[in-house]
């Protein structure tokens, strides 16, 4: 689990940040995040999941899914067919300098197909 992360816009360009890569725990996962503050609003910040194998070069990997709202500040991404490594993407475009978002990722639920 990560502690809260705050991202503040220094300009109004579209920006994508990556978390570190971490190894998958299974072929499939349900990832969760909690957004506790968002002054960007209007869909200005989105969260995604990318994946790649250890021998693959590149920072972006292949998209494995995106987070969608569950309720309140909770978001979930259900991903299948993950490769060896996984990381999250945070993409935002503020309409004014100083806007920002505060969030944290929660521990994932890893699972393999049972049937």
């Amino acid at each position: 689990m990560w502690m809260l992360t705050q991202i503040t816009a220094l300009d109004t360009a579209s920006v994508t940040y990556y978390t570190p890569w971490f190894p998958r725990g299974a072929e499939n996962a349900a990832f969760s995040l909690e957004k506790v503050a968002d002054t960007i609003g209007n869909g200005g910040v989105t969260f995604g999941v990318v994946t790649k194998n250890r021998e693959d070069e590149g920072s972006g990997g292949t998209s494995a899914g995106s987070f969608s709202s569950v309720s309140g500040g909770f978001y979930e991404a259900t991903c299948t067919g993950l490769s060896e490594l996984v990381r999250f993407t945070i993409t935002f475009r503020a309409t004014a300098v100083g806007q920002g978002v505060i969030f944290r990722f929660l521990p994932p639920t890893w699972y393999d197909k049972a049937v």
Partner: protein
Amino acid sequence: MCGCQNSYGITNIPGRRISYGETFYTDWVPRGGDCAILRAEGLIKTAAGGSTVRISLQTRSEEGTASDMDTFYPSSSPKLLEISGTGLARAIYLAKASSVSPVRGFLEQVRAKITVYGGAAGDYYVVRIFPLVFFDNSIPAAS
């Protein structure tokens, strides 16, 4: 790190068949935080009678009696995790600033209650329950 599995118990039901009219409880396990996400997966559904599977949580202090818990999500009745087909389903349990009734935050122990709701003879599901994802509030909780 995100790759950790900060989760405990209430699982290790890797795929259990539950039939019309049946209810069972998991063992009690220690909590890992005030709040949690409960996830379960419907693997097989044979429910011509229209049944669903309802999974709710109970909590207690080690020396206490069981209390049914109230979900943050779903926010409307039935406030529990309900499976009506195959695939993942989830419920979120979020503690308040102090104890409330029905219970919103976890006490020392937690277990799941699984029941087939409604339907008719012959209905059955195969479900699995994943380890609870425990966490604590990151900002002062609502009262």
